[in-house]
């Protein structure tokens, strides 16, 4: 289904009235589409309100006791980091920490002849490619340490294998970069960074972290309403996501 077709299903989905196949496809789409996620939240609010039309029934007294008793035996799970935008004054501390990680990622990438970057440029010559990697990394480090850059936390999803990430966005440079740390080796899979624009994921780069670190440049502006997301893909070069999103950040 196209984005518009999936979008048209959102009110029906909010009513829990989709068939299982359409629901599965829409759920997969919602993992990568910020626009549809926002619209769905509005429809869910409306659907939830509709529930009050059903009227009330007196709940038995022991139901309250059962719920509170059960709650006393469990602890609320810690909230996942929200995709918040971090601005001054916290920018400095984040920038320092992540700039350090980025520098480490650059060093690893240099030693590994740019192994973190598997789909940048497309130039054939290995030396040219290495030089481009070095130049890009220099630009990215400047971007990360710039006080003008916007910093977004990459919120982990339920599919996250661990690790964390930050997106650094420079409107002035019309560029961005994602720094991730603590990512496990994907084995035969590969990590892919996507830029999601109006619900349409566009591949930015496939990458394999070195010692858990990776630095992925985004050549182009990341504008409001856009989302950066990392997936685990079964192979390189996918033009649309096939694997689960493990972390994402949306620019408000």
């Amino acid at each position, binding site marked *: 289904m196209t984005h518009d077709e999936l979008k*048209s*299903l959102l*009110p*029906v989905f*909010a*009513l*829990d*009235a*989709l*068939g299982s196949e359409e629901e599965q496809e829409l759920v997969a789409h919602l993992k990568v589409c910020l626009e549809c996620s*926002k619209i769905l*939240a*509005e*429809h*869910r*609010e*409306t*659907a*939830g*309100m*509709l*529930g*009050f*039309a*059903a*009227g*009330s*029934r*007196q*709940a*038995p*007294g022991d*139901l*309250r*006791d*059962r*719920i*509170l008793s*059960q*709650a*006393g035996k*469990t*602890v*609320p*799970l*810690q*909230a*996942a980091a*929200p995709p918040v935008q971090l601005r001054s004054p916290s920018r400095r501390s984040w920038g320092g920490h992540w700039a350090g990680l980025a520098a480490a990622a650059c060093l690893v990438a240099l030693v590994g002849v740019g192994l973190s970057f598997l789909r940048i440029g497309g130039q054939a010559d290995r030396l040219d490619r290495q030089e481009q990697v070095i130049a890009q990394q220099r630009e990215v480090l400047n971007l990360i340490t710039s006080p003008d850059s916007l910093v977004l936390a990459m919120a982990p999803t339920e599919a996250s294998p661990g690790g964390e990430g930050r997106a650094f966005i420079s409107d002035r440079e019309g560029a961005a970069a994602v720094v991730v740390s603590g990512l496990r080796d994907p084995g035969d899979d590969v990590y892919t960074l996507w830029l999601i624009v109006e619900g349409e994921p566009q591949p930015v780069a496939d990458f394999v972290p070195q010692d858990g670190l990776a630095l992925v440049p985004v050549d182009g502006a990341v504008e409001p309403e856009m989302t950066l997301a990392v997936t685990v893909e079964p192979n390189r070069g996918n033009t649309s996501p096939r694997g689960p999103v493990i972390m994402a950040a949306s620019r408000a």
Partner: protein
Amino acid sequence: MRSRLRRSAPEAGDLFDDAGLVRGLAAGDQQSLAALYDRYANAALGLAFKICGNRTIAEDIVQEAFLALWQRPDSFDVKRGSPGAFLMGIVHHKAVDAVRRESSVHRREENFAMDTPDSSGDEVLEAAWVSIRRQKVLAALSQLSGVQRQALELAYLQGLTYSEVASRLDIPLGTAKTRMRDGMIRLRTLLSQSEVTASYDS
């Protein structure tokens, strides 16, 4: 237990503070859970029973819904809606899931008579507020076209899929989907105008 956990003297401005209660859940505060229960349990049970038609299953659904909110308070974004509607959404999803999963459950047919809200004892304020909310939703529903309202009622209050709605009404699938979509969009506008979707703390 009830009196011990119940807030004895809510401060002005806090009485209708759903968002504050959700923050309490995130902090692991059982009193916040108890307060949310007092506020919404009867409405939640009414919805679950309306869909599954079985009191025992409906109570289980309500229990699961409150515990789901307790265990994952981060699943609710206070900026994107009201906790009451969010909780009712959980209840609805679980009730529909139970109905579709359990063939032994006999759903009640053609029973749209609304039950009288409970409003007695020390819950009178909570019940009154929920009743006001319900009246506004019913008023908004009454402003939909007959076919839109019928489609929403069949889908939401009877837990039918849109293809089942189409079959029940003997209309094309696309028509059923359009009626539900247009009805939802119209309902959202009407509820927004009446500000009933505003949080409990508004």
